[in-house]
């Protein structure tokens, strides 16, 4: 029988929630890495027992962990065990170093600071780890300050794909409220050379050559909070989602506006329709219905909690514009949590399961595509990320 494994990153550790295919009874494992901010955990599609985790701290910096047994045991993949006497130390799996100009040896570029002045790139943390669809040892790390790194040796060493920062618009990128983070990466399952990424606040970008070169894909986005609302870059994209069978169709939750593109990001149209607010962070696509999408509308600016104290998921079965509210099992009174951008995921069981985590420490699951919801857990630390693995 199929199983489901939900990987939850929180402000104070990681948790692994497992259930059989009925998704009624759950086992909770954790906290793993107690006390550390666990920004993201994700399993390899090619080897589900290989899981990568981003462990971070404002005090002690970035650590990468990996597991080869589905999260039962963990190791730092650089081999950071006690070295034998006289052996060279390793310890490079947490080393993220930005490329410099090969000609001058100086930083590739600067970016815009909050006040509009130019500011040097400074590595803060890994927001999201995206394992390759085909190779368990290849994994992408998207980081703050915005940059893309790749490892091809199981996260032992990392190398920047600096064509992104170096392609020319870097000096126009600026930090959003969460810092200048590259937070979203989407790999095209039909074309290994095509990668999408999104940055707050720069916008969306596409590569057609495996990450070597990049093109901004923000035509159609409008952002009133930047001097030119239709600028080529500068948009605060919160999340992009794609269905694996429709790689040219992208859905976006922007700082304001829910958008879709039917041409791989070359142009975007707003599909916010009848949402109570078109601000939010998460967006995801049903595992078997490419036009069924989910968002969690959030009140803004600044409040960042559900409108009217009611936690509601909205589902569109038409790829946007027409939305229905999903409330059964969700708190409809006095609820003031947020759902952060990496905190929604779907499983691929026959009746698609949908999951999301809140800053109040709840992880909600729906085993019927959103019709009804129940909390798997309700007292975790603030949830930063949720990923789901469907296991045979």
């Amino acid at each position, binding site marked *: 029988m199929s199983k489901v494994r939900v990987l939850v990153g929180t402000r104070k550790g990681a948790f692994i929630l497992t259930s059989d295919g009925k998704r009624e009874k759950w086992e909770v494992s954790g906290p793993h890495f*107690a006390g550390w901010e666990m920004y993201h955990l994700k399993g390899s599609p090619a080897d589900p027992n290989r899981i990568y985790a981003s462990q971070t701290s404002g005090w002690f910096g970035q*650590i990468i962990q990996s597991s080869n047994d589905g999260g039962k045991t963990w190791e730092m993949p650089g081999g950071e065990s006690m070295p034998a006497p006289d052996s060279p130390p390793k310890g490079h799996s947490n080393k993220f*170093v930005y490329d410099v100009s090969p000609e001058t040896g100086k930083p590739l570029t600067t970016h815009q600071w909050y006040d509009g002045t130019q500011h040097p790139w400074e590595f803060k943390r890994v927001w999201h780890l995206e394992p390759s669809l085909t190779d368990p040892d290849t994994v992408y790390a998207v980081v703050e300050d915005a940059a893309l790194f790749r490892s091809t040796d199981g996260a032992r060493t990392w190398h920047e794909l600096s064509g992104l920062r170096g392609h020319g618009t870097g000096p126009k990128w600026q930090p959003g409220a969460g810092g200048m983070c590259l937070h979203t990466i989407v790999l095209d399952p039909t074309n290994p050379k095509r990668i999408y990424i999104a940055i707050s606040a720069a916008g969306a970008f596409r590569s057609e050559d495996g990450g070597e070169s990049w093109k901004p894909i923000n035509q159609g986005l409008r952002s009133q909070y930047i001097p030119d609302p239709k600028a080529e870059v500068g948009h605060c994209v919160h999340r992009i989602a794609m269905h694996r069978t429709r790689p040219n169709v992208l859905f976006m939750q922007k700082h304001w506006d829910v958008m879709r593109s039917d041409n791989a990001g070359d142009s975007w149209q707003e599909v916010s329709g009848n949402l109570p607010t078109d601000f939010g962070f998460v967006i995801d696509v049903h595992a078997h219905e490419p036009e069924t999408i989910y968002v969690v509308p959030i009140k803004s600016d600044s409040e960042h909690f559900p409108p009217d104290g009611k936690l509601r998921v909205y589902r569109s079965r038409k790829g946007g514009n027409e939305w229905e509210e999903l409330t059964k099992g969700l708190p409809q009174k006095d609820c003031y949590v947020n759902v952060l951008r990496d905190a929604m995921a779907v499983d691929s069981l026959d009746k698609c399961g949908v999951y999301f985590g809140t800053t109040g420490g709840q992880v909600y699951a729906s085993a019927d595509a959103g019709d009804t919801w129940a909390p798997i857990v309700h007292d975790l630390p603030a949830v930063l990320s949720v990923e789901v693995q469907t296991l045979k």
Partner: protein
Amino acid sequence: MIRVELPQHLRTLAQVGREVQLDVAGQITQRSVLDALEARYPMLQGTIRDHVTQQRRPFLRFFACEEDLSHESPDAPLPEAVASGKEPFLIIGAIAGG
């Protein structure tokens, strides 16, 4: 033998207790002590000093003998009591939250 006290998060990361003891060759400075610490416990690389600049991470401070040594040169000799092993070299997380 040089004694180094670690903050809680780094103890769990390195799987050690509050204090570790290190053999340090040559002059006893912040740099030589931290080099020896990272060589013995490579998982601590990048957690105390930046990988590239080798500067102290901003939310960490160094103390010994009731003195704040955070802003001393990394190559300045540490107090004799640290060099002799009488007193530990303290690595402390800033009080701001945690």
